[in-house]
């Protein structure tokens, strides 16, 4: 008996004994499963049942029981549990796999028309997973209405033995649309009758969207390449033997650029180089060789000649691709830059013309920012004009400003300040001291505020006006000389007319004195005749004014150095004034003055003294021509056919010198011993300064006619 407890597996002994003790104590049957270790060491499992026997006093005196060897049963049980656990685990893994891959599975019982589905299938359809089959009608409803017919048609095809494989859309109960891929297969019984369909359904929405995005991206890329005339290429290597297959990939656009048919595949190296323009071939060959030898990139623009002989400019950019330091391939782009290249060439030509024009006209262009001192653009001529070396780079604005003549710098600075502050344009003239030889040049600078730039961004030109300034100074000296000569001419006229002018002044003075005598007489009457006295006094005043008028007219004639001052003048008034002044001189030489003046001739803007001088010269010239014979001077004024003011002064004198009627207007040309020969020359100079003309013709019967015109543009609007 002692051996029995020993045979109980040590780990189970306590459990067995406790069960026995409990049975003894409570009187309930004991039941326990435990292992026993046989003497040969084999472990088996037994099921023991025990009953306690008691005497009349209730005292337990015996225990009776049975032991059943359940080793086999237990092993089978354990195997079954293990199998069940494995199954559960497999199911869980399958579920997890389905969940991760968005693949659900389903079994369609063709007899009951019910569908047994996996949880993931439910989730794909937007249904809540549940145990047991689901109604096929629910699934049918979820299929996108537009795809239902197609799906059912596929289902029918399966029945006829085909394998189901279809993509279709579903609309989840919450309205979300998904795309699924279903595969189905038919199961048949031993008689060949189909009884079940098994299949999977995978949610491929994300993949489809990615594919769509990729397709779109590829489309955009392809479209972009087409629109940009840009293709891409890749090559494992370029090879160095001309017959080598380049082994490259060309996008469609590259084929288009080269005018080649993609169906013929990419060209080998020899074919490729043959497509390059002969003038560019050698350099392209060198480029390819260098890329091959040094594994370096390239950026070259070359010409290719298409099979139809059209020449295109192509820019080829390539880079070597390395992986873990090992060269793998070249990748690159090829762009049709024909338009840009032609434009660039045109631009270069234009720039060359512009630079040449600037050089010829001594006009430079520039674009600075006056605040930062940065120069965005400086033409070569600007640099040259300031005396800088063309090889100098990025000459700052300040250095240009420093060339401005020190005397002009404050004015230039002030002239630039306001436009810079207000963003307005400016136009200034100043001198510079050239940076190289220190020569003084005169510049005119025009600056326009850059409309789309910063406040102090300007674009403009600088013109060399040194010659112009010299010419202006020369012209000013000539003008001054002319003015001096004109003054001398006037003074000479006054000298010649001294006697006649003295008469013009003396006449009103004499009248005044006479009237003053008469006035005294009338006052001396008894009673004084005041009315006659007043009349005499009035005449004295009038004569005084008359004398003053004559003197005033003459005084302007003597003035020197006064620049011409234009005012509205009626020419007929000037002619009348001159007729009065020259009246006594004409009378002295028995010359009568007749005038036919158009009263409607508009006024002109002119300098009074200059016009007086013109008429004084021409009228004196006429009197001079008739001084020995007397005669008639006729002055006419009106408008000619061109609408210009036309004045003629005719005389009946000696006439024009033969064969030299034009020379009479030359300076110092005179037929008079005392003449200076300046009168008619100055007359012409004055008339021409108004854009007019003066000329002379023989008079019909005798003498000469002098004509002068003055454009009516000089009309006064007063």
């Amino acid at each position, binding site marked *: 008996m002692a051996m029995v407890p020993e045979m109980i597996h040590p780990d189970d002994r306590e459990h067995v004994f406790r069960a026995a003790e409990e049975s003894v104590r409570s009187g309930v049957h004991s039941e326990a499963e435990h292992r026993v270790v046989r003497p040969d060491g084999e472990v088996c499992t037994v099921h023991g049942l025990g009953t306690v026997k008691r005497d009349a006093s209730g005292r337990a005196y015996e225990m009776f029981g049975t032991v059943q060897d359940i080793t086999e049963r237990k092993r089978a049980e354990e195997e079954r549990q293990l199998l069940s656990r494995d199954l559960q685990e497999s199911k869980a893994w399958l579920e997890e796999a389905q969940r991760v891959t968005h693949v659900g599975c389903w079994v369609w019982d063709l007899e009951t028309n019910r569908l047994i589905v996996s949880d993931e299938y439910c989730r794909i359809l937007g249904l809540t997973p549940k145990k047991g089959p689901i109604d096929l009608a629910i699934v049918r409803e979820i299929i996108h209405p537009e795809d239902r017919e197609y799906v059912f048609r596929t289902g029918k095809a399966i029945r006829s033995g085909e394998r189901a494989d279809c993509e279709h859309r579903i609309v989840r109960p919450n309205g979300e649309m998904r795309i699924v891929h279903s595969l189905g297969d038919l199961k048949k019984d031993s008689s060949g009758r189909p009884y079940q369909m098994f299949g999977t359904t995978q949610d491929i929405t994300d993949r489809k969207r990615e594919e769509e995005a990729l397709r779109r991206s590829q489309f955009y890329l392809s479209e972009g390449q087409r629109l940009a005339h840009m293709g891409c290429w890749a090559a494992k290597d370029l090879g160095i033997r001309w017959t080598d297959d380049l082994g490259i990939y060309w996008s469609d656009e590259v084929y288009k650029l080269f005018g080649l048919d993609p169906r013929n595949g990419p060209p080998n190296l020899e074919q490729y180089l043959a497509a390059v323009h002969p003038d560019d071939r050698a350099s392209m060959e060198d480029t390819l060789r260098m890329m091959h030898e040094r594994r370096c990139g390239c950026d070259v623009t070359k010409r290719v000649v298409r099979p139809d002989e059209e020449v295109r400019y192509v820019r080829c950019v390539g880079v070597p691709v390395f992986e873990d330091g090992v060269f793998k391939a070249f990748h690159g782009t090829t762009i049709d830059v024909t338009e840009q290249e032609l434009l660039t060439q045109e631009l270069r030509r234009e720039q060359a013309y512009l630079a040449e024009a600037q050089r010829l006209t001594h006009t430079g262009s520039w674009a600075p920012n006056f605040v930062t001192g940065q120069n965005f653009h400086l033409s070569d001529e600007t640099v040259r004009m300031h005396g800088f070396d063309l090889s100098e780079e990025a000459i700052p604005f300040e250095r240009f400003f420093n060339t401005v003549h020190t005397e002009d710098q404050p004015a230039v600075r002030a002239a630039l300040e306001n436009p810079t502050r207000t963003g307005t344009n400016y136009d200034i003239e100043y001198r510079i001291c050239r940076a190289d030889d220190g020569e003084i040049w005169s510049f005119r600078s025009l600056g326009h505020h850059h409309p789309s730039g910063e406040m102090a961004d300007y674009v403009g030109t600088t013109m060399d006006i040194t010659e112009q300034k010299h010419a202006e100074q020369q012209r000013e000296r000539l003008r001054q000389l002319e003015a001096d000569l004109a003054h001398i001419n006037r003074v000479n006229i006054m000298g010649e007319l001294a*006697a006649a002018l*003295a*008469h013009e002044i*003396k*006449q*009103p*003075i*004499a*009248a*005044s*004195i*006479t*009237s003053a*005598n*008469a006035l005294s*007489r*009338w006052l001396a*009457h008894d009673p004084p*005749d005041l009315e*006659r006295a007043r*009349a*005499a006094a009035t*005449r004295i005043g*009038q*004569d005084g004014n*008359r004398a003053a008028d004559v003197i005033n007219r003459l005084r302007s004639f003597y003035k020197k150095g006064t620049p011409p001052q234009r005012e509205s003048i009626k020419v007929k008034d000037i002619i009348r004034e001159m007729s009065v002044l020259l009246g*006594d001189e004409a*009378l*002295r030489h028995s010359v*009568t003055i007749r005038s036919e003046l158009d009263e409607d001739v508009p006024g002109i803007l002119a300098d009074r003294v200059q016009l007086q001088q013109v008429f004084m010269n021409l009228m004196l010239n006429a009197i001079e021509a008739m001084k020995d014979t007397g005669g008639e001077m006729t002055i006419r004024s009106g408008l000619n056919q061109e609408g210009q003011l036309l004045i003629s002064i005719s005389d009946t004198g000696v006439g024009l010198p033969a064969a030299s009627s034009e020379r009479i207007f030359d300076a110092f040309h005179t037929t008079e011993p005392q003449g200076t020969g300046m009168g008619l020359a100055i007359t012409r100079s004055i008339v021409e300064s108004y854009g007019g003309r003066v000329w002379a013709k023989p008079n019909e019967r005798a003498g000469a006619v002098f004509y002068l015109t003055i454009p009516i543009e000089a009309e006064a609007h007063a």
Partner: protein
Amino acid sequence: MKSAAVPTVFIIDDDRSMRQAIQDLVESVGLRAEAFATGRAFISRQHTGDPSCLVLDVRLPQMSGLDLQRQLAEAGIQIPIIFITAHGDVPMSVRALKSGAVEFLTKPFRTRIC
């Protein structure tokens, strides 16, 4: 020409101011005066009495004072002539006085007439 009750001084000067001033001066001393701008105007005037005096400007348009003097002499008209001129031409005054002029005055008159 016939004699008038009041002596008449005839004045010929082409300058209107001078003409009026001389006429006024003559009238201020109680004489009659008649003024003309030209010699021809004087000749064409129908004179009713003998002229007492002729104040004649030397330089006149169309016909000078000396020409008028000559024409009057040729016509036998005796009239004292006082020449007036603003030019003060000595040879001319000598010529005028030789031809019978009573006086040769230079404008402006430096002496009182009356």
